[in-house]
């Protein structure tokens, strides 16, 4: 796996651009520390959840169906 790239102010600017989020001047410096820490941890969790043994797990956010479908009509 390629080594992790550091989050930079320029990268934050690109991400904000993709989201069409206009960042006020200086905002990159305010959020960079927390964003970098959270992305690092989120990537670690993603690696864990990509393991073969978890392949059948589905996300918690899916529609569930009532035992009796008539109930929700």
């Amino acid at each position, binding site marked *: 796996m390629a080594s992790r790239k550091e989050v930079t102010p320029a990268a934050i600017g690109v991400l904000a651009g993709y989201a069409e989020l206009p960042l006020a001047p200086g905002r990159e410096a305010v959020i960079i520390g927390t964003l970098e820490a959270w*992305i690092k941890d989120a990537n670690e969790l993603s690696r864990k959840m990509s393991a073969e043994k978890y392949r059948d797990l589905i996300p918690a956010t899916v529609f569930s169906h009532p035992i009796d479908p008539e109930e929700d009509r």
Partner: protein
Amino acid sequence: MGKAAGELLELSLAQAARLVKTREISPVDLVGVSLDRIRAVNGRLSAYISVFEDEARKVAKAAETMIMAGHDLGPLHGIPIALKDNLAVKGFRTTAGSKVLENWIPDHDATVTERLRRAGSIFLGKLNMHEFAWGGTSDNPHYGAVRNPWDTERFPAGSSGGSGVAVAARTCYGAIGTDTGGSIRLPSAINGVVGIRPTYGRVSNHGIIPLAWSMDTAGPMTRTVEDCAIMFNAIAGHDPKDVTTSRAITTDYTEPLQRGVKGLRIGVVPGYFFHHLQPPVRDAVKGGLKTLEGLGAEVVDVNIENIHGNISAQLTIEAAEPSTYHQRWLREQPDNYGADVRSLLEIGEMLLATHYLQAQRYRTLLRQEFLEAFKRVDVFICPTLPFTATKVGAMKVVIENGVEEDMLSAIMQFTGVPSLTGLPSLNVPCGFDHDGLPVGMQIIGPPFDEALLFRIGAAFQSATDFHTRAPTL
């Protein structure tokens, strides 16, 4: 009035209800002393954003008239309570602790509001909170930093900080909070009160400003477990206005309070539940377990293999979902957000969809593991959070070895597990540290078995007096 104001304020909700029912005290008296108390202490605590003085007195008079005419609505009839300011109350300003909604007056009640109103409660006002519930300090830049009544230089935790403080400071007989990542349990622990995060789907979120749809819940915060069960009776149950609510049957949650804990098995997760804690927190929660063992419960080690990683999953989901809800406002009025919430909302736009969905898959994994563990134990007990109240304004916290840690990650060390798994969880006061600051323990149960949590909490309070102590203001 037969009782002095101080005596009335020290009554539990259940005690006050019994005296109202027998006409020994009037709702007018209860509202009067509560409003006086709010006036006396709110300047130092900033617990209330709005106080409904005229409305509360008017409703109290009507409640008194009904009681005198023999119409009793039940144990909440004539009882003054307060609501976190993210619950809609028809005709009254609901800000969610924000400048964005500073002038919003809902044209409807939240379902929780409506059910409490129908049960006869009297609303004293709306409680301060972390802005939009996105944070754990209740250091609100628009309505003042909420302060801890045990030491007003300390924080009250959050996001339902005003709710915890209002109850602890004896300004009301119960309050409603909301809990996404710990926002009922954390201020309950830090302020020395009882609070329950219900099973996800047990209590309606209709009419509550959302934080993270897939984890949001609402629940009562009170001085005693019995009081909490009484309020829970009024609000639990399916709501056709909220598609996330369950049709699972409700029960009378006060019924099992006297059953004790003999024969119950309490799980603890070695290497996680008592790892990385301030020593007084560890001692108080271990003392709590000893008390329950003395009452006949058995403590059992249970390994939860995948418990590590829960904080990242929680932060990822809590980042992405609020940023979705706030997407338009963040672009139209970014300067109307406080500094910390603005940053968190911006960060939430920069995590990847795959991060979010892997976090949601992790929830499935963790929930499966806990559901399997409930075949071997009845509940789990752990600290509610690893430290006692820090100074107001602190963004870092020291837990051990002098190392400073980020407040938001540290505060969710134990509350994230029920939030991610959807399991119910009850905070019960279980001690104090060397500075006299409260410590809470968290009882985590199987889905929809809030009655079991109340039963264990009530047994614990029958053997301890932590819940009877009051802060001096």
